[in-house]
């Protein structure tokens, strides 16, 4: 069972998980020929992930979960991460991500937002302010 980045990651500007991953398994969707149609978040390539769990405590949003611990509201995110393996040439390790620590209140708000939204529209995503 793999480790998965859920939608709690969306619009995050913290790259601590990327820095921590020893095998460059945390990637963003950056196809060469078009703008990504996927949500603005990171994914874990299940083929590269070695289940070291080093990324889990690094994520300020607590967005990284084991497949077996996945809440029903986030189950679709498993397939989204698996896509990184199936179309690996479209996924790359993020080159630059801004770093900002988030507050526990922001984490809780983000969790509530996604748990309560079955399939929210893009304009409901709340981008983090850059420090």
């Amino acid at each position: 069972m793999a480790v998965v980045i859920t939608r709690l990651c969306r619009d995050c500007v913290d790259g601590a998980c990327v820095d921590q991953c020893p095998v460059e398994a945390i990637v963003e969707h950056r196809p060469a020929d078009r703008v990504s149609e996927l949500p603005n978040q990171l994914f874990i390539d299940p083929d590269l992930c070695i289940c070291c769990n080093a990324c889990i405590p690094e994520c300020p949003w607590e967005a990284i979960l084991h497949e077996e611990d996945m809440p029903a509201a986030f189950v679709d995110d498993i397939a989204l991460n698996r896509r990184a393996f199936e179309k690996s040439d479209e996924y790359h390790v993020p080159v630059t991500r801004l770093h900002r620590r988030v507050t526990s209140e922001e984490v809780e708000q983000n969790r509530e937002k996604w748990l309560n939204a079955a399939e929210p529209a893009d304009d409901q995503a709340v981008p983090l302010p850059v420090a």
Partner: protein
Amino acid sequence: MYSIMLYMKTRVTFRVAEDLAVTLRSLPNQTAFVEAALREALRESCPACGGTGRAAGTGLRVSNLRSQSLGPLSRGSALQLKTLVALARHAAATDVRLERARESFDIDFMVVRGDTVLTRGTLSTAEASSWPS
């Protein structure tokens, strides 16, 4: 038949030393000779790609910690492993094999290219003891 095959190939031009040029022109089948020599040289002389043009290190396999019954890595251990993986990629290794060290919580590693062991050692997991298993 031969001439048709020849024109299906792509022309390339390169400069060589004069003595080599004389020798080359004296050969009865220059194209086949140069093609064979290039293929041989690419296959034999490039340790990273084996003549494929794609470095073996890009397909590096690292042991899955869960299947090796290894616990979560601490931040320090993960950074050690990250450095090791970068080194393995640089050395065009094919595998980084990990397993629990005997009589400790440390992780033994072995960096391998094909059948050749490039290096081996132990990753310290001292911080990992406080993690839940």
